[in-house]
């Protein structure tokens, strides 16, 4: 068989697009971890490697979130059952803490490795 003009074109275009995808996904991968906090009125991103304490206003009062040592946790919350405090520290991408009564959601974003438990095909 003879390889035709647009066959080369197809191969070159493919290599170019694959390289673009590679660059894009590597860039995505190198992003730092961030704590994404959503309240009933707004949302924020904080880098996980800077220690700080954040006060979030919700319908019940103030939820206090601490970011420390590359982890995030709720240290105080006005909700009745304190489940958000019991959830402890989250450190990995994809983990989250929710406080439903005070409408606060904290999740870790950034590195792309959100762990999938199991895939079956």
């Amino acid at each position: 068989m003879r390889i035709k003009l647009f066959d080369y074109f197809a191969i070159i275009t493919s290599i170019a697009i694959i390289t673009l995808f590679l660059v894009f996904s590597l860039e995505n991968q190198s992003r730092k971890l961030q704590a994404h906090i959503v309240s009933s009125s707004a949302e924020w991103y904080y880098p996980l490697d800077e220690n700080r304490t954040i006060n979030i206003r919700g319908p019940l009062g103030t939820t206090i979130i601490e970011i420390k040592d590359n982890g995030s946790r709720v240290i105080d919350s006005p909700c009745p059952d304190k489940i958000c405090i019991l959830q402890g520290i989250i450190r990995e991408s994809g983990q989250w803490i929710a406080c439903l009564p005070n409408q606060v959601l904290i999740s870790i974003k950034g590195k792309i490795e959100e762990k999938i438990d199991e895939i079956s095909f």
Partner: protein
Amino acid sequence: MKSASNNSKKTLNLVSFLSALCLFLSLIEYIIPKPIPFMRMGFANFPILIGLYLLTPQMVFLLILIKVLGQALIQGTLLSYVFLFSFCGSFASGIAMVLLSIVFKKNISLLGLSVFGALASNAMQILLAVYFVFGDSGWIIASPILIIGFISSIILGLFAQTFFEKSIWIKKVLKAD
């Protein structure tokens, strides 16, 4: 061209045969263990490549539809998001290949069509993975899928083109028209 009824019967035979071949090849492919769940060699696309040269665009899409539905029934993924992936991927590649074969006509062989088809299908599936199912973690699978798909599409395209030129069966089918 012979009479219309004769011709449509032949087309029907050809579509049925190529569909059956698709499903058979999917089964063969299913036997091969996969290191990554989504990864497939794409043997099942061989009849579609051949179909590009033997069938009208409508019939190519019919063939792809039968392939996608058949594969989903065999693998039991008809009602899962895997089916959405396979459906969109197959049709993206089908549309790309049909359009390119019309635009470039004699200047492109099954090799180029196969490479473009694989690219369209994989890119579509990655975009779906990122935007609908896995979020940003979909990017992990992007590069390996594209690279493996690229290599396997070259092998498949070379094989399909050689087969198309050498096969006695293809000569018979073309002559019968």
